């Protein structure tokens, strides 16, 4: 069977990444703020497993702390998307065809119509570049994603008899949405959340790459890549390791998301 393999690989990669982030709270091989210019661009090996960067900082330590940054940005961004998008989607579905539904859906389309990176740049132009603003920019674009997924999932549930039964039992739309709809689209939301999480990591990397994400001295994978770009032919390791960290993490999360979808979907179908 292939599905668990995919899921396990994804889970292992994701767990590795989360573990590195947690570990970095207590211990890193070197301090990431400590510059040692004389020790710069050391190849992997010796005291520095993954070498040092152009300031002589330990790349492994930076990657570990960078994982924390990525997680923080992605978690909050997905959180914003869910916190706003899910209620909107639930409301829209509960009042299908109403003005509210129309406004939510058109609003969604409108947000989708805006080029996301451009808006992110505009946001940072307004508030200045920082990890927080990167979160905000990514989070805003997560809202319609979750609103749409929620509404889509909820609409099909609203046609089911048990929702009708709940209405016959005199329950209001709000209560039904919370009690019957939300609990049954949790699967969908988890899967979508995983995907958005990995997209958030990619987006943070992209924003940091153009200098709009987390600010130094806070390490960020995207900025590590950006900083190392010109050095790639001189000291390939300083560009390769952050790149690999992004690829493997995103890969892990995507595999996990897909694996979960495969795992959860058939059961959903059977229940319906």
């Amino acid at each position, binding site marked *: 069977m*292939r599905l668990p393999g995919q899921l396990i690989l994804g889970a292992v990669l994701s767990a590795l990444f989360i573990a590195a982030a947690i570990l970095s709270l207590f211990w890193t091989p070197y301090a990431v703020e400590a510059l040692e210019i004389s020790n710069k661009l050391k190849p992997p090996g010796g005291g520095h497993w993954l070498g040092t960067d152009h300031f002589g900082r330990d790349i492994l330590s930076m990657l570990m702390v960078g994982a924390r940054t990525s997680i923080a940005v992605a978690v909050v961004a997905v959180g914003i998307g869910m916190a706003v998008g899910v209620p909107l989607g639930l409301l829209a579905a509960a009042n299908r065809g109403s003005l509210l539904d129309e406004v939510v859906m058109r609003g969604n389309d*409108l947000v989708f119509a805006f080029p996301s*990176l451009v808006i992110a*740049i*505009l946001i940072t132009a307004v508030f200045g570049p920082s990890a927080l603003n990167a979160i905000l920019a990514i989070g805003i674009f997560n809202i319609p994603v979750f609103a749409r997924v929620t509404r889509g999932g909820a609409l099909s549930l609203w046609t089911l008899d048990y929702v009708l039964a709940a209405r016959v039992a005199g329950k209001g739309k709000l209560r039904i949405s919370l009690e019957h709809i939300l609990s049954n689209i949790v699967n969908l939301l988890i899967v979508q959340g995983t995907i958005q999480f990995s997209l958030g990591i990619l987006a943070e990397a992209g924003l940091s*790459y*153009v200098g709009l994400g987390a600010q130094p001295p806070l390490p960020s994978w995207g900025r590590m890549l950006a900083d190392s770009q010109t050095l*790639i032919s001189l000291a390939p390791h300083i560009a390769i390791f952050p790149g690999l960290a*992004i690829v493997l993490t*995103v890969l892990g999360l995507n595999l996990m998301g897909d694996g979960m979808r495969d795992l959860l979907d058939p059961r959903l179908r059977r229940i319906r």
Partner: protein
Amino acid sequence: MLRFVLSRLISLGLSLVVASLVIFTVIEVIPGDPAAFMLGLNAAPDTVAALREELGLSGSYLSRYLAWAFGMLTGDFGTSYTYRVPVADLVGARLWVSLPLTIYALILSTLIAVPVGVLAAARRGGPADFGIMGATQMGIAIPNFWFAMLLVLIFAVKLRWFGAGGFPGWDRGIWVSLKALTLPAVALALPQASILARVMRSSLIETLGQDYMRTARAKGLTQRQAVLGHALRNALIPVMTIIGLQFSFLLAGAIIIENVFFLPGLGRLIFQGITQRDLIVVESVVMLLVFAVILVTFLVDLAYAVIDPRLRRAT
């Protein structure tokens, strides 16, 4: 059909009005005075004031919004603060890079994704499927700027098959221009193709499970005939949505790639516009992009009607 088109057009117009208000307001609150930026460190305050007046930056919010909005309706996008040329000319020139690049990348990604997706779906669960799915997962996970860098390093710096970037202009010859766009198009197409291949695969797999596929087989069609004759067209419907979304994404989202390859495209125009506080360029181009996205969505909807007869009646 006409009614369908008309009602869609009206909602399209409304979306544009809302979008223009949002854009104008956001741009309005961006700190940084274009005039001060243009004049640099040693400028005297009265110089800055003179320039502000010249650029038309004084005046109320509403009057400037209306001037801008009505200007756009008549095709007058205003004059760039920094370049001092009509924004329409700037955009026009950039469009000749961004649009071909987008189409190039889109064609590439479709040409790769559709056969690959079909193959994966047909060999579902087999090693080919496994390999393709793994590759597409990688394709999605690789940041495209990173991929672009690797392309430049290998094909421009090491092998010297392509230039490292830049765009000579269509008047220098179609092949030269296409060659200049090849690496950027590949860099853009890789993640898009990966997404598209996955959508193609899952859409086809879903279609393969439909009752009419069983009907087709019961008619005596081979699996291959059934897939090509019946499943593919149905499976293309969700794929088209993605292609439509990708078009708009590529048109606007190529900023980073345009930077890596120093292409004079729309994305870089915006980026540059923001850093140089050439806000009139920013708002006009963003508006144009939003318009393009809405228009493409509209066209995709129309294309649906061509593929799917169920939507042809006045839906």
